[in-house]
């Protein structure tokens, strides 16, 4: 059985029909075709699937798609405007905060949520805000430095 689902993703309205057992992650990747958001663990334990749901970072793999009805979703694709990347993405690049890149979409969105709430975070606040985004490559140091370079801008 399929259910109607209406939600906004990166400012665009989607009117869909989905089975109940689809998650928000499934909808973003399979219906919206936005594959920047990744599936890592599927259990809410790695943060690779992080999106902003009504401006708050959540694990899209744990949200039933139908629970997102009527809500606003921001994925990593929504960070670029007219082909220009977001300063957060720029900072990640210039600071060498990306290796394989798999954690990066989730990381960048968690950073956006942090800076929108707290524009001048201290190092501990940065690390706590990113505590739900695991990175197996970088050891986090350059990610933290990238965010520090944005603090107070």
């Amino acid at each position, binding site marked *: *059985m399929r259910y109607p689902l209406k939600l906004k993703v990166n400012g665009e309205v989607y009117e869909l029909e989905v089975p109940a057992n689809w998650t928000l992650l499934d909808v973003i990747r399979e219906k919206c075709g936005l594959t920047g958001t990744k599936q890592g663990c*599927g259990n*809410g334990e790695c*943060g690779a699937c992080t999106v902003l749901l009504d401006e708050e*970072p959540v694990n899209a793999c*744990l949200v*039933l798609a139908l629970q997102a009805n009527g809500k606003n979703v921001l994925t990593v694709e929504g960070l670029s405007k007219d082909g220009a990347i977001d300063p957060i993405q720029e900072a990640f690049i210039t600071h060498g905060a990306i290796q394989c890149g798999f954690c990066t979409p989730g990381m960048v969105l*968690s950073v956006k949520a942090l800076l929108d709430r707290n524009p001048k975070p201290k190092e501990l606040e940065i690390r706590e805000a990113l*505590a739900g985004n695991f990175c197996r490559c970088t050891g986090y140091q350059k990610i933290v430095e990238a965010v520090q370079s944005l603090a107070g801008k």
Partner: protein
Amino acid sequence: MRMRKFEFLNPSSLAEALGLLKQFGAKAQVIAGGTDLVVQMKNKLATPKKVINLMGIPELTGINKKGRNLRIGALVKHAALERSPLLKDGWRILAVAAHKVGSPQIRNLGTVGGNLGNASPAADTACPLLVLEAEAVLTRKQKERRVPLHSFFRGPGKTLLGKDEIIKEILIPPVPAGSVWAYLKLGRRKSLDLALTSVAVLLTLDPKTKICRRARVALGAVAPTPMRAKETEKFLEGKTLNDDVIREAGERAQKESRPISDVRASAEYRKEMVKVLVGRAIKKSLGIPIPPTGI
């Protein structure tokens, strides 16, 4: 990892939700933030045929004063508990614990009602609520009851809730003046971990003599349910909290705990950690510096 198929029901009022729950009984399960249930459904540990979404129900939301008590709706998220200006002084122990749940993403989804209803012995909001002597208001169609939280938990994953019943809200009484508190959670990493052992203490001291007039101590992840260490509490009451008393309190709490060995830690290690953490929690509540402990 695909969840089994189910029917999604989306009531817009508490009455409607309770009616659906009564109608479908054991075939149905309620969902709040989904941070426990969706994981269980993906791993086929839960296979409800009907899932009733509670997130659209206004009567279950909000943090507010109700007389002298603090009322917390079952759907209040851990992130909201962390940030609420109403959780101050003694009530703040709950905000500290809510901050240690999972990760920012989990805290933006998970709710206190879900945390208690899932009834993990390691549930982070449980031990603070136990020392705060909170009550849970449980509701089913046409019937509501208030139960002290210490009788709510029945075993790992098991609660007092009937098949047609949900948690409506938590009520927390005022904390006695002159109370100090601490919550410590031991984990293997700094986030996204279940407690290996957790301790909440709430101690009321006589303002002049500093004798402990009233002690509440709760232990997590070391018994089939979150538990009050009642012998330890009795021991602490009437005493001056010097080093010997604090050390013995740790030893008594250790004797009261009944941990099991599991994939995260052995029972022996957990027992040792009860002793260490109770001692440190008491010291922390008194403002005595302790080594960095846990997450």
